[in-house]
């Protein structure tokens, strides 16, 4: 029976009563999330209003949870959705399957699919959580959508390399893809590992299977 | 008088409930009602202290141990599961013994001397005295010198009724010693050995596997 310990405990709890409370009044006050937070998906547009998605299905292949379904279709001069040949005729993400890993974002050659910081998507039915293009695509009157570097809070400096390369605002850097879990920089078919110096050549361009 | 009749009816009904209930816990609840009614009866006789002790000792301590034991030992078994109804067989002798006890009790009540100043056990004068005693409640129940006060109770217990009181205490002491002997499992050395034994056993069993 350590009676002194009991009094110590009582003093501790009494002191804690006057400390600042850790509670955040959640629905009314929202906490700032990490700048690289992975939330609800969004399909972005170019500044001229064209859809970025070209229906290449790379995100569908990259998705580890099989949550993405893309069916592409050809653009025609009368019915043009994206600048390229093809566009996503249907684009569906099952948010209940999604693990919010961000692989789709990394796989996307045009930065069309991005993960926004939004996370409040509770609903009553399963069907309502299968998001189709009408829910994912940024409406034309709402601008182009959020690029990763435009998120609230910006990007932390030490993590900037990947995100900076990802940005299509720097056309000379090409685009970023992920190869076996390593961020790699490809430009004109050459593959580079990002290094502080700029990039180390990893491999020469390969011909695609059954190439032209 | 109306209070007395209601209490008497409650007492008898609950007493019948105690012996007629199939489920032991129902019997206990009936007995609890019985004790409570008895305590209120004491109150109407301005035996305040006795009523309180009745509640604290009998209802609060002893009867709750009944519940405890019933809850621990096969709570679900009712009297019906224990075999054929034996109540009918013992009915005739029980009625005879009960009637005899009633006659003796009635004789004792009618011929009991009413101790002056109201010794607590004089409260047995239920029949003729109840009216005046109820009237006494409104004056000053349980005050010093009044009927049924703690001082009077204590004096009666430790002077007039000292021998029965001490004898009863000895009977209870014997019961306690009996329980210790039965449940204690003998001398402390033997108990220690009994605790050590199960730890030693597995060692021997382990040997062949080596």
């Amino acid at each position, binding site marked *: 029976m350590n009676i002194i310990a009991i009094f110590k405990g009582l003093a501790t709890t009494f002191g804690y009563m006057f400390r600042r409370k850790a509670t955040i009044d959640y629905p009314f006050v929202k906490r700032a999330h990490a700048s690289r937070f992975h939330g609800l998906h969004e399909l972005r547009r170019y500044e001229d209003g064209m859809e970025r998605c070209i229906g290449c299905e790379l995100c569908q292949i990259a998705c580890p949870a099989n949550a993405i379904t893309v069916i592409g279709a050809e653009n025609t001069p009368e019915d043009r959705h994206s600048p390229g040949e093809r566009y996503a005729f249907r684009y569906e993400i099952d948010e209940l399957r999604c693990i919010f890993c961000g692989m789709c974002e990394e796989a996307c050659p045009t930065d069309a699919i991005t993960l926004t910081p939004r996370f409040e998507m509770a609903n009553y039915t399963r069907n309502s959580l299968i998001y189709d293009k009408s829910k994912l695509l940024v409406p034309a009157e709402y601008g182009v959508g959020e690029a990763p570097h435009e998120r609230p809070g910006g990007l932390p400096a030490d993590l900037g390399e990947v995100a900076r390369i990802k940005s299509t605002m720097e056309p000379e850097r090409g685009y970023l893809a992920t190869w076996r879990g390593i961020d790699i920089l490809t430009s004109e078919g050459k593959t580079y590992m990002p290094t502080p110096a700029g990039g180390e050549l990893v491999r020469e361009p390969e011909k695609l299977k059954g190439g032209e | 008088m109306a209070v007395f009749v209601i209490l008497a009816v409650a007492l008898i009904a609950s007493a019948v409930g105690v012996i007629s209930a199939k489920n032991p816990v129902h019997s206990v609840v009936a007995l609890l009602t019985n004790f409570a009614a008895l305590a209120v009866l004491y109150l109407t006789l301005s035996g305040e*202290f006795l*009523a309180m002790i009745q509640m604290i000792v009998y209802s609060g301590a002893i009867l709750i141990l009944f519940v405890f034991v019933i809850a621990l030992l096969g709570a679900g078994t009712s009297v019906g599961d224990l075999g054929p109804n034996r109540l009918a067989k013992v009915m005739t002798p029980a009625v005879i013994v009960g009637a005899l006890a009633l006659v003796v009790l009635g004789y004792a009540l009618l011929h009991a001397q009413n101790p002056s100043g109201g010794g607590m056990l004089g409260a047995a004068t239920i029949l003729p005295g109840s009216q005046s005693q109820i009237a006494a409640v409104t004056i000053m129940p349980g005050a010093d010198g009044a009927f049924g006060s703690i001082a009077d109770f204590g004096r009666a217990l430790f002077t007039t009724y000292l021998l029965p009181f001490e004898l009863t205490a000895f009977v209870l002491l014997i019961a306690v010693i009996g329980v210790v002997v039965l449940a204690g499992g003998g001398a402390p050395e033997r108990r220690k050995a009994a605790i050590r034994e199960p730890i030693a056993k597995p060692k021997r069993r382990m040997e062949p596997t080596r």
Partner: protein
Amino acid sequence: MIEALPLWLLVAIKSLVLLIIVITLFAYTMLAERKVLAYMQLRVGPNKVGPWGLLQPAADALKMIFKEDLTPSSADPLIYRLAPFIAVFTALLAYAVIPFSQGEHGPWSIANVNAGILFVFAITSMGVYGISLAGWASGSKYPLLGSVRATAQMISYELAMTMSVIGVILQASTTSLSGIVEAQSRMWFIVPQFLGFLIYIITAVAETNRVPFDLVEAESELVAGFHTEYSGLRFGLFFIAEYINMITVSCLATLLFLGGWSGPGSSGHPLLGLLYFVIKVFAFLFFYIWLRGTLPRLRYDRLMAFGWKVLLPLATLNLLVTAIVVALWY
């Protein structure tokens, strides 16, 4: 004017007023407990219903009322339904004799009984029936275990509690609660009966089955103990009984050891006395909640050993010393 009323009506009015006060006090003790516990755990507690969450008890009551009242098929229906009422009945009955202040015509209580303290103990010793019968009648194992624990625990600690209070009775040489308060006009009994006071507050926590002695409803072992099977209003009744018992033992501690309504300038001012009384009772209630926020639950064998091997001998010693002192000097 008051004397003109018939006695039964006066008692009925007093009882009704007291009932409303006690139930309200219960509701806000519960809210205070949640708030204080939250503050001790760096949370803010209920704050959405009404300003600072002050209407939370009303919301809780509504929830309780509209919840389904289930009776398990294995339960004993009569006793299962009876048990919560026994618990609340015995909890409330104690207030029949508790005086709250001293007026011109006598203490402010429903009935000024000479054996007041005995009455309170007689009634609170009935409270264990509510718990033990509830556990037995539920017809499942966790409630049964909880109620068996409750019975053993409450009987064990009731002994030490009564012993600690007999010291006070000896010193005041009366069993009337208002008489005990009057006997403390020179010195509160907490000073000469300090050991008794310590034993009383420890056993009081155990008697009301609260942390660190809440083995009865140890949720990590017994789901919810004796009220596992109860739902809706019947569960609510147990809840009410627990908190009202808490208030009762706080009132008793105030009356027996802290001089009840006495305080600077309280003689002749019943309302000021009432204020002192309420402040003292609230201090005890806060202490209860504070304990709950601090201490972990005792192991069951330690609980019993503590009751029988520490508290009971100490209480007996205290009683013995008090008896000798009273016999020689009073």
